[in-house]
């Protein structure tokens, strides 16, 4: 800076034109510079010292951090995000990511997170293999997400806080899994186990005063040990089969019963139809009889004879052979024509005297 100030009105850029007058100017500047060399060096030294002092006394706290300041090693204050100053040499600052969600994985390791997250192919069975309450074995993988809530406690209370936190997580998870059966661990109890382990882990953190707040504990893959897996799958298959058998039987049931109900309904309807027909016929015939009878009562003999004759006249033509026997001449048989071929066609009266005899007609 001082260099530019002493160069006068002409900035360094004017010299770049390549014109003659530029050269003497530069020489004069160098001469002047050499004369004041010592003072300039001191200035530069002070300048550098000032810059260094500035940079050692200023620090920036990122938005997701908190700065913990100690003076002579003693806790002094916590600073929020932004630009802050400390007394150089006497004070020191440690930045702690308080807003960031930190994560620990148990039983597996993410190698590279991304769209297609890559996992370590090793199995961390020593972390994930645990005994269940019914003395079976399950492989439980889980993650814990946590935040630093109290940066002062986080920094000053526990050494090797990460391994301590991992130890606590493992102990807490085993405590809880040890109190559940293998079936609960694998199926129904998952949420309950995660919730209980989280509470237990938080409790331990409070006791250890780690300043950590457990945000979430999530069970990942929970499996039976590899060699036992097939038999667990077999159980699942058996359950499926059980459901399939039951469903098939129910389907047959659902198919047969409504049809049977339909058939039953039809049977009853048919019976109803029969009943209606039967009763109606009876009523009809009865009322016809009554009508005929009413007339008959008016003139019984005549009606009776008429009905008799009417019937005969209707029936007679339809008959094949008619033989009249005279009891006085009982021997006269020739009229009985045994040779049916020469039988007479029906009498000249045509098909019947009444044409279409109305049975109902009382007359």
């Amino acid at each position: 800076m001082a260099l530019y100030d002493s160069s006068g009105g002409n900035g360094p850029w004017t010299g770049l034109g390549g014109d003659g007058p530029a050269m003497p100017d530069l020489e004069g500047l160098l001469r002047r510079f050499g004369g004041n060399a010592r003072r300039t060096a001191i200035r530069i030294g002070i300048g550098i010292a000032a810059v260094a002092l500035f940079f050692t006394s200023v620090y920036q706290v990122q938005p997701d951090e908190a700065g913990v300041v100690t003076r002579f090693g003693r806790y002094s204050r916590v600073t929020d995000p932004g630009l802050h100053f400390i007394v150089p040499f006497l004070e020191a600052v440690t930045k702690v990511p308080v807003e960031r969600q930190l994560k620990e994985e148990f039983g597996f390791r993410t190698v590279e997170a991304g769209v297609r997250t890559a996992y370590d192919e090793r199995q961390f069975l020593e972390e994930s293999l645990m005994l269940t309450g019914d003395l079976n074995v399950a492989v439980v993988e889980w993650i814990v997400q946590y935040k630093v809530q109290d940066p002062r406690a986080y920094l000053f209370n526990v050494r090797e806080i990460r391994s301590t936190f991992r130890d606590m997580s493992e102990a807490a998870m085993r405590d809880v899994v040890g109190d559940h059966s293998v079936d609960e661990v694998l199926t129904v109890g998952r949420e309950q186990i995660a919730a209980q382990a989280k509470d237990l882990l938080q409790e331990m953190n409070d006791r250890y005063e780690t300043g950590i707040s457990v945000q979430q504990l999530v069970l990942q893959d929970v499996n039976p040990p590899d060699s036992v897996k097939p038999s667990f799958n077999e159980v699942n298959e058996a359950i499926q089969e059980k459901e399939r058998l039951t469903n098939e039987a129910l389907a047959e049931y659902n198919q047969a019963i409504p049809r049977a109900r339909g058939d039953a309904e039809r049977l009853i309807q048919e019976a109803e139809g029969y009943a209606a027909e039967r009763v109606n016929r009876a009523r009809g015939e009865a009322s016809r009889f009554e009508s005929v009878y009413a007339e008959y009562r008016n003139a019984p003999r005549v009606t009776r004879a008429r009905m008799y004759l009417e019937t005969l006249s209707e029936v007679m033509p339809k008959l094949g052979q008619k033989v009249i026997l005279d009891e006085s001449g009982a021997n006269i048989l020739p009229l009985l024509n045994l040779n049916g071929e020469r039988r007479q066609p029906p009498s000249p009266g045509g098909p019947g005297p009444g044409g279409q005899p109305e049975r109902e007609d009382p007359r």
Partner: protein
Amino acid sequence: MKRALPVVGTLAGLVLLFASTYTIRETEQAIITQFGEPVGGAVTEPGLHFKLPFIHRVTRFDQRWLPWDGDANQITTRDKKFIWVDTYARWRIADPLLFFQSVRDERGAQSRLDDIIDGETRNSVATYDLIEIVRITNRDFEITEDLVSFATEEVPSEIEFGRNAITRSILEKASEVTPSFGIELVDVRIKRVNYVEEVRAKVYERMISERQRIAERSRSEGQGRAAEVRGQRERELKSIESEAFRQAEEIRGRADAEASAIYARAYQRDADFYRFMKSLETYRTALDEGVTLVIGSDSEFLDFLRRSR
């Protein structure tokens, strides 16, 4: 030379200042020794402190909770189960002076803790059944409909003490010894418990056979349920069909009865005429051309025929 004197004086002053002060950080505590001999008590307060320059020496210790992670021990439980038990502990230097005198540094402390905690762990674990080490409460397992767990005979479900009581007793017993090293034991926990390799294979076999039993039962339950549904279907079919038959017959019967009553009521007016009328009707339908009629000449029908002759 005259000008150098203040410079030398200042430098000497600075050196003296630095030699007579020391800082204790939040994570530290210290003791002061004079030619190897402790002077005064422990310094636990963080910040700037003073001492005699060159004579007093500061020995710093950690003030935080320190880790201890034991090796996994193979232990036999009281019920003769072979397991690995892995414990961890957290401890702090409670009395730096005593700590310094008895174990000198953390490495010494770690090896003492190994002896103490491993020993107590062995002692405690060996006096309990495995179930006591695994479980913490006597809660009942939730049983799912599909996986009704077979209460395996060899697995007891009741505990008397539980893991927490065992770790507490380890902590208490170990804590009886550690104060003599200036160490406060804050927590001991069982981190991992596992079957040893050979036992694990047997446990897996047991798990497998247990699963197979569940699977088998599930399958036969399925068959049973299916048979039950089929039986129910048969029963309902029969009942529906017979019920329908009964109703139909009743309806027909009632209709027949009603019809009879109607006929009877009508025809009773004149049974004779009914018979006459019905007979005529029967002639019409019963007689056809296959019938040969033989009539006596004295029949009513031919009454007039004969008379006119």
